[in-house]
């Protein structure tokens, strides 16, 4: 076992545990930043300076996008239902399984620590991704699962090429940007929690409510309707006043 890599893997897993168990959005983003910065370093040999710089820049930009999406958020994310110690234990168990099964049936070309970290991240990412009820928590699951996949890929196939690091950097920005978009949309609708009117009543049948952004024409029509209502109210008020 390479102790340096094991240490970095432990830091990445700790960041992931913080991200999935935290309730304060700032703590969650901090946890994700730790994961995104540490994950590219669980590699043997280490990537060159340029790929590392690209991954660091991508991690900073990605978390910046998340922060923009959460700016001014005072509410809390759902957090874990089982507590951080349990999440940490799940991650540890998965890491042991990943380390022990290095290569998944054939000789792995990368470090076993990467597979251990990948398994750990995947184990704690599944629940938020599949049953997360708020946008940020689901996004955390998505970011962690993709990082887990790239770590396992590293363990199986060996060090990524420089171009692969560049594409992974783009993927990091894309997934965090997508999460930021969804959190922004959720907050604009009232909070981090996501609403699915169609799913609130399982017995409900028929068409799901439309979720499109209203077009200019629909806005104009709405304004016309509002204006007409206002005119009617104004027209009715004097009569009511005289009646009184």
């Amino acid at each position, binding site marked *: 076992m390479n102790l340096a890599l094991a240490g970095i893997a432990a830091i990445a897993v700790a960041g992931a545990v913080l991200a999935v168990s935290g309730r304060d959005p700032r703590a969650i983003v901090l946890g994700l930043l730790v994961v995104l910065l540490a994950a590219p370093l669980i590699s043997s040999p280490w990537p060159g300076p340029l790929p590392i710089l690209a991954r660091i820049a991508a991690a900073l930009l990605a978390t910046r996008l998340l922060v923009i999406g959460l700016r001014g958020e005072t509410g809390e994310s759902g957090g874990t239902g089982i507590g951080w110690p349990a999440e940490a234990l799940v991650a540890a168990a998965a890491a042991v399984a990943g380390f022990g099964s290095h290569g998944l049936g054939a000789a792995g070309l990368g470090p076993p620590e990467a597979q251990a970290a990948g398994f750990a991240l995947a184990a704690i990412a599944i629940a938020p991704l599949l049953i997360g009820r708020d946008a940020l928590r*689901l996004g955390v699951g998505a970011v962690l699962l*993709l990082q887990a996949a790239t770590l396992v890929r590293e363990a199986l196939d060996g060090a990524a090429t420089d171009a692969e690091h560049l594409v992974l950097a783009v993927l990091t920005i894309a997934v965090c940007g997508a999460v930021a978009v969804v959190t922004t*949309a959720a907050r604009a609708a009232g909070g981090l929690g996501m609403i699915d009117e169609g799913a609130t009543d399982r017995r409900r049948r028929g068409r799901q409510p439309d979720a499109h952004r209203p077009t200019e024409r629909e806005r104009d029509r709405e304004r016309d309707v509002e204006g007409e209502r206002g005119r009617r109210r104004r027209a009715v008020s004097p009569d009511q006043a005289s009646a009184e």
Partner: protein
Amino acid sequence: MTVIPFLVAAAAAGTASLLARTHRGLSTSIAVFGLIVMIATATAIGPAASIEIGGSRLAASEWLRLYAILGSLVGLLLVLVDVTALHEPDAPGVIVLGIGAAVLALALSDPGVAVVAATAGGLAGVLVAAPVGAAARAAFVGAREIRALTIAGTLSILATAWLARPLGDLVAAPAVFGAAYLAFAAAVAIRFGAIPFHLWAARVADAAPGVALPLLMAWGPAAFAAVALVWIDQSVAPLVLPFGAERALIAAVGAVSILLGLVAAWIQDDLEHVVGYTIVADAGFAVLGLAVLDPAIWEPTRVWLLVFVVARSALAAWVVAIHGGFGTRRLPELSGWARRAPGLGVALAAIAIATIGWPGLAAWEARATIGTLALPSLLAGLVTIAPVASLAIYGRILAVGLEPVGQTVKVGRGERPSWPTPMPSRPMVGLTGVERTFEKAGHAAGGALDLAWTVPAGIRRNRMGLASIAVLVLGVLAVAVAAGGLGVPAAARAVPAIVEPGPGQPTEPSEPAGSPSASDEASPAPSDGGSGEASPAAGSPGASGSPEASGPLGPSPGSSAPAGSPAGESPGTPGGSAEPSAR
């Protein structure tokens, strides 16, 4: 020329368009300019051009070139239709970035990197799937899309990684290969929204603008499917394992998507949902293509991918034009639409022809071949003729259009040309011929100025007609592609000049997959000093690494494909790396 200029244009224009998103007109102008540049650069791509960057090779092919040209052209027409109809924010920039990411994925010769690029491109679409200012449910829709894309990306990354190295002891556990094969096929099915993975795709049609639907559900996933096709050819087929259960499962998903997708599209009242489910149905053929390990599947699947993405883009553009013109997408509210927009009626007929076709048409033959290769004969026949049932879908829409004009359509825009102001008439007061000549010239200049001054208002007034023209162009393009025009069959048949070695190739265990040395092994004759253009010899599959398939199970019996046959002349040798004859 390599794909680099195309990718640079797409990245620059897409990013700039999104950065300028608060100025909608500027943002759209940047995207339109970018798409024009992308068409030009795509046309200049050399089919055998390749370049190595950072240890990964970006290689072009005939099919990639056609995909890039059609993607940019269709993207441009979609944006133009959207501008004249609804002018959705963000959609133009996302279309540019999405097409760029798809071409990047197709150009990367290592499927392991290509799936990462395809996933990143798909995630860019979330920007339009969960727009700020939409209903509260849009966030839920966007979250579902992220979930689907993440799971598909993870499955494909793991599958490609699992089989991208010397397989050694894995030979003792053939189930591993089946699991990897199934994982990648499931990833493709999820990306397409194939049944039973269709829920996220159905929700996307609730929130994403119609103009972005083709990118989210067709163009991006089609590139993903093309990468899967290459990967299966390089990494799964050379194993010479039967994969009976896995192939049956994949074929079942494909067949069910085709049949139930059409039924679902038929019962929808919302036209965007009709687009979504017809995409699901058409995508079923792409999924079916993954269930076949015969090299003969290469050409029909790649033909069908191009046919269906162009045809469904045309249908989406048609819906956007209808929505923009009449202010609704609900079919029951669109009585008499064809009477007020006959051009769109003709376009719908063209789209129907392109998607249904008839025996002998390239699209029909592609579907028939896929069905025959993937399914037992009875089911194959059923699946092949199933798209004829789309006649009921198009017939229903047309029947509503021929009804008496309803209130919603009556107050809509209509296609009839008109001009915002009457042409001013200037009385002639000159007496002599010279005076009248000068006066006429002055009137002509004044009239031209009057006309020029009202052109923007004239465009706004006639936007329904202009949208119809753009949709009609898309419909004609779809018919051309479906008929095998624009060199579609030849491009689908052509073998990529540059490919990465699959797991069947002997590789040094100490070398990471995709390392520069591995790429060099797959590289063709030396390039001409940095231009990135491969020499003509690179077109030969025999130059793409080992000519003989020697997978982990040993050399394949029945290897018959001649090594070194020229690209494009060996329809049975797609992928090239593992010489599909290994199957």
